[in-house]
């Protein structure tokens, strides 16, 4: 319990550090006037004056930092001037569930698929099944996600949309789960798969290597000497132990995807998630939005990391004692 509190305190500290860093990068870089950047291109002197006063750019840096954090997290009235005064935080809050649905679904697919592929490959080490699966994994890693997405769109939306195979595919865009669960599933199943492909490749290869290395460990030899079946040794002793590495890898990837790393997939499939928001802000140089999404993704990476640490405690008794 104290360990968890300790971990929470650490998380808060890291979040504070991240926010200072992000603030510094955006507003305290010398040689650029943040007022002009927030107000957008060709802003009138009145607007410039208003922005300068609102964000406190005429006051010392710590005050500016506090104002910015207040606008981001407390009053949540950080507004985008490039986009005619649209409030940034509610926009992100609207986009976040879309990204979360996309990433969670993809994560489910890539975790199940890569565990299956990696375990089968390790069990049939050096056979053609193993080589075939690992080759497939390598292909998955090599395919760029935006290309795969475009090809998927081309096939399902265009050329073969009217065949029996793909007539169920809805048009690009997102359907909220609350509106229609089936529509939600249909809209997301292809993006999920496309996003998962590369991770299936990476994770199945990592897991196979891990399992093959573990096969030489003393405790695997002990398990065989106990007279257990090879499958039980592989699953209960090998796979269970390699889950420790697997989870730490998963935490990092999951966090960066939730924090906007699924940008390309969201753009290609027209999903209004955080990634697409960032993409739009980047094309219009909408500084408040960029700032907010960066902050948001940093928060998610840190939180996901803390979650992984908690899962770790359950997976690895050695960690439990160390903390």
């Amino acid at each position: 319990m104290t360990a968890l509190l300790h971990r929470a305190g650490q998380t808060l500290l890291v979040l504070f550090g991240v926010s200072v860093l992000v603030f510094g990068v955006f507003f305290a870089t010398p040689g650029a006037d943040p007022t002009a950047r927030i107000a957008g291109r060709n802003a009138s002197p009145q607007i410039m004056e208003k922005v300068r006063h609102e964000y406190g750019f005429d006051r010392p840096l710590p005050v500016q930092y506090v104002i910015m954090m207040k606008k981001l997290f407390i009053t949540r009235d950080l507004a985008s001037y490039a986009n005619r005064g649209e409030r940034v935080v509610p926009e992100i809050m609207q986009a976040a569930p879309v990204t979360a649905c996309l990433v969670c679904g993809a994560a489910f697919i890539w975790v199940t698929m890569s565990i299956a592929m990696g375990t089968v490959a390790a069990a049939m080490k050096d056979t053609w099944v193993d080589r075939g699966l690992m080759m497939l994994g390598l292909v998955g890693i090599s395919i760029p996600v935006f290309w795969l997405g475009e090809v998927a769109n081309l096939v399902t939306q265009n050329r073969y949309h009217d065949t029996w195979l793909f007539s169920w595919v809805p048009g690009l865009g997102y359907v909220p789960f609350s509106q229609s669960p089936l529509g939600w599933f249909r809209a997301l199943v292809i993006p999920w798969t496309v996003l998962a492909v590369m991770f299936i490749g990476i994770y199945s290869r990592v897991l196979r290597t891990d399992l093959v290395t573990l096969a030489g460990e003393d405790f695997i030899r002990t398990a065989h000497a106990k007279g257990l079946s090879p499958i039980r040794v592989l699953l209960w002793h090998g796979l269970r132990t390699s889950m420790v590495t697997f989870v730490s890898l998963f935490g990092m990837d999951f966090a960066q995807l939730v924090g906007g790393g699924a940008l390309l997939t969201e753009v290609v499939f027209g999903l209004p998630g955080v990634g697409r928001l960032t993409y739009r802000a980047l094309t219009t140089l909408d500084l408040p939005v960029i700032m907010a999404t960066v902050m948001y993704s940093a928060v998610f990476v840190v939180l996901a990391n803390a979650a992984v640490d908690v899962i770790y405690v359950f997976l690895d008794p050695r960690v439990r004692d160390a903390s």
Partner: protein
Amino acid sequence: MCSLTHGCVMPADPTIPLLDVSDLCVSFPAGGRMVPIVEHVSFTLPEAGILGLVGESGSGKSVTAMAIMGLIDTPGVRVSGSVRFRGRELVGLPPRQIRRLRGRDIAMIFQDPMTAFTPVYTIGWQIDEQIRAHERISRTQARARTVRILGEMGVPDPERMARRYPHQLSGGLRQRAMIAMALSCNPTLLIADEPTTALDVTVQAQILDLIRSLRGTYGSSVLLITHDMGVVAQTCDSTLVLYSGRVAETGPSDRVFSHPGHPYTAALLDSIPPLYGPRPDRLPAIAGAPPVPMARPPGCAFGPRCAHVHAACTTTPPALLPLGPDHEAACVLPAEGTPLPPRTAADWPIDTIGDACP
């Protein structure tokens, strides 16, 4: 008990030795050819006997043990010869059948108890797992037996220890838990591969005492693999000295220790520090290193390091020659009429090391 109910192993027959290994050869593929690691090793182990398998690292001790257990799974490995367990041939037995013997009739304990347990499960869970792999009993019954055996192995507060993870136990306790796991299905043969090497000296003595007591309490035979002549002296009825994958000498321990027939055995005995009398400035060591398996000499493998080497040693590997009852050595010296001198009782470490340990 297990063997009768499962009906796959003959009941004990006093005329058949428990374990009869003859002409066991193991070769591994390397660099496009087969490299022999163990060559023509033969020995027998009677019921309730303790046999010490001695040799330097790389002499093929562990490979011999793994071959008996059928645990060598390197692709392309070749195991020939015969391993008979209660008259039943184990070499070439289908994996499913040898698996049923493993852990139930033949159990094994390993050198490093830290790495020999799966780190993510409790000790008790892992012992329960072995019991339940071989017998149809409930979880609670299995746990009750686990706790009982842990207690018998001298683990304090066994109920609580069973709920602990391997890393939470000291080395000595872990090795006791390892032995408890090996004994959990009442095996008739226990193979102990350097069980005390990773432990400190006092714990070593306790573990050896425990192993020695097993034949009385459990009626188990033990194949004890070690590189430590002192351990053999304390523990084993008979001794088998391996050098470079071949048998150098074999016989009852007291004979081997008092009348070593092979210069290698004699050199090993010389390198045990004396417990009484003046301390030598330097312990005698055997000069040189054993030949690598790829390039064993055509004659006696110990020839290049032997003080008595002469022309007769360099052509063919010397055959095992009888020196006394059950005592054989693979050396030409006794046949040439110049056997090694017997060792005096002061040099002789049997029962002295054990007493020296508190």
